[in-house]
């Protein structure tokens, strides 16, 4: 997993509540064998005017120009603003995969669904909870100025606006540690690689038939 320390990027305002994972990545794309390839289908039903199919080239599809992500001024956005209960619905890990692949590094909202919140940390996407009134400030500023960027600093736990206004956010110490260091569950377990190797050596002496049998 790529570490997240601090990030400055273009902001896209998605002014909706209860954005569910089916909207983030519709179910027909779950038949995929991949963890990648979901970026073009992020928010598929909102981004395009036709119904998307897996393995389709999205380049020629009719685009919904009324959807905020398609506004030229938000092209290349990497910070998403949203309203409450973002990521509700199914547990699909495909939702953070899609957001990440599209290019988002952080989602800022007043609240998130639990599973999505967890899945995001596992995939290097930082979900940030700010108060409703703080969200209102960000939405207003973002809409007022083209090219609006925010700086998200995980170390300091702050979101900094272009005018210097700063909001701080809470994050679980363990998750912060993992994300700062780019440690996913596997990365964490691999910190114990020496213990695993030592165990393995002992295990092989006790049960040699468990090793090398299958080739």
């Amino acid at each position: 997993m790529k570490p997240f320390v601090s990030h400055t990027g273009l902001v896209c305002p998605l002014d909706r509540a209860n954005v569910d994972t089916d909207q983030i990545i519709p179910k027909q794309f779950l038949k995929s064998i991949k963890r990648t390839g979901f970026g073009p289908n992020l928010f598929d039903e909102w981004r395009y005017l036709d119904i998307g199919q897996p393995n389709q080239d999205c380049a020629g599809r009719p685009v919904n120009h009324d959807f905020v992500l398609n506004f030229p001024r938000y092209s290349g956005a990497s910070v998403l603003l949203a309203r409450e209960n973002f990521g509700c619905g199914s547990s699909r890990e495909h939702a953070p995969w899609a957001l990440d692949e599209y290019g988002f590094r952080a989602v800022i909202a007043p609240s998130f669904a639990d599973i999505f919140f967890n899945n995001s940390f596992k995939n290097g996407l930082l979900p940030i909870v700010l108060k409703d009134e703080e969200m209102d400030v960000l939405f207003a500023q973002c809409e007022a100025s083209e090219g609006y960027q925010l700086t998200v600093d995980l170390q300091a736990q702050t979101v900094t606006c272009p005018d210097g206004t700063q909001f701080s956010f809470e994050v679980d110490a363990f998750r912060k540690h993992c994300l700062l260091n780019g440690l996913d569950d596997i990365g964490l377990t691999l910190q114990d690689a020496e213990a695993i190797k030592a165990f393995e050596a002992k295990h092989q002496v006790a049960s040699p038939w468990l090793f090398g049998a299958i080739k």
Partner: protein
Amino acid sequence: MAGKTLYDKLWDMHEVKRRDDGSSLIYIDRQILHEVTSPQAFEGLRLAGRKPWRIDANIATPDHNVPTTKAERQGGLEAIVDEVSRLQVKTLDENCDDFGILEFKMNDTRQGIVHVVGPEQGATLPGMTVVCGDSHTSTHGAFGALAHGIGTSEVEHVLATQCLVAKKMKNLKVAVEGTLGKGVTAKDIVLAIIGKIGTAGGNGHALEFAGSAIRDLSMEGRMTLCNMAIEAGARVGVVAVDEKTIAYVQGRPFAPQGADWDKAVAQWQGLVSDDDAHFDKVVELKAEDIKPQVSWGTSPEMVLAVDQNVPDPAAEKDAVKRGSIERALKYMGLAANQPITSIKLDRVFIGSCTNSRIEDLRAAAEVAKGRKVAATVKQALVVPGSGLVKAQAEQEGLDKIFTEAGFEWREPGCSMCLAMNPDRLENGEHCASTSNRNFEGRQGAGGRTHLVSPAMAAAAAVAGHFVDVREMLN
């Protein structure tokens, strides 16, 4: 200090490290891979630039998506009609080739359902930790192994680290004492257990099946039992090692040999719960009380003996239970108080990782022999659990018995157990099935599954409705 349960021993043998938060790193001896839950795990490895920790701990075979008709199978991978299925099978092939993982490909005689193939090859051994991205991995506990299903992220985790992060569970013992009646099988035992303790009865527990009736079962029967531990809510099911376990394992391709064999047997003989081991919960059943079982509803705990009547919601005082009975009756298209034997079948499915081993096919063939599938039954499928089971059955002439009776004899795979391939129920159809889940839509949208033993399924195929198979056995 109290002695240890079998589960305690298996846990202790594999605990690499206990972490501060109470979870442990558990070393995994064997991972079995199939085409549906592994692709993203392999891709994850690649994206992170990681290598599998120990190639020789893994073995793979495609099963969920493979077609089971000879016509479609003969053409190999390219002939799989469903594009997504073909891609998933192809991806497994490519991943295994790339990483050097031994795979029994679709038309290899050793291919089959993951939970049939592992034990058959001796890739599942007593004392092992076994995982697979499939909840019925509990099957392998029949060998005195610690085995359970995992998700895709964990498949990747095991590939990369050879470990899982886990918390120790509690111990539950289900003891079945006595002697089973004729025509009553391991499937009936496990359905009766689930009927008694419920689908959440084993939550948070490792379930050890014990007692004289369990010791009397063959290894095939014990696999059927452990297979459905998950349906009782227990991710892990285990049976103590005995002479039958060791005899079954001996001589299998990946079983130890020579001096290793003797050493292994000495270790395996200790894989039993100590007499003074502490179980957090104990449930007892008498084998003599168990009759052939039939599930009538949409959860494995909605099960009755074949001579009983479907429940009447009006007789249920608990409002939540009454509601669930009403919903299940409606979905299943059954009337309150209707005798189980009055339920007519549209299709019959003999197969799945629960009941597709040679002994299961023999039991079904014994009933089918010299009889015909009822004209009202649209389709009766027999799907062997592996290519080797199929070959063995053909050598014994079981395929002839089935086809002469009007059953279709298929190529190995999961088939109609979950209907990811073209074998499925139509809306509203009733199916006597030897599989393990009767959830709504499991065997096809609107399909109505009744879980039974292979002998009961064959009897239902012949009669066109459920019958007590004991009346058909001489």
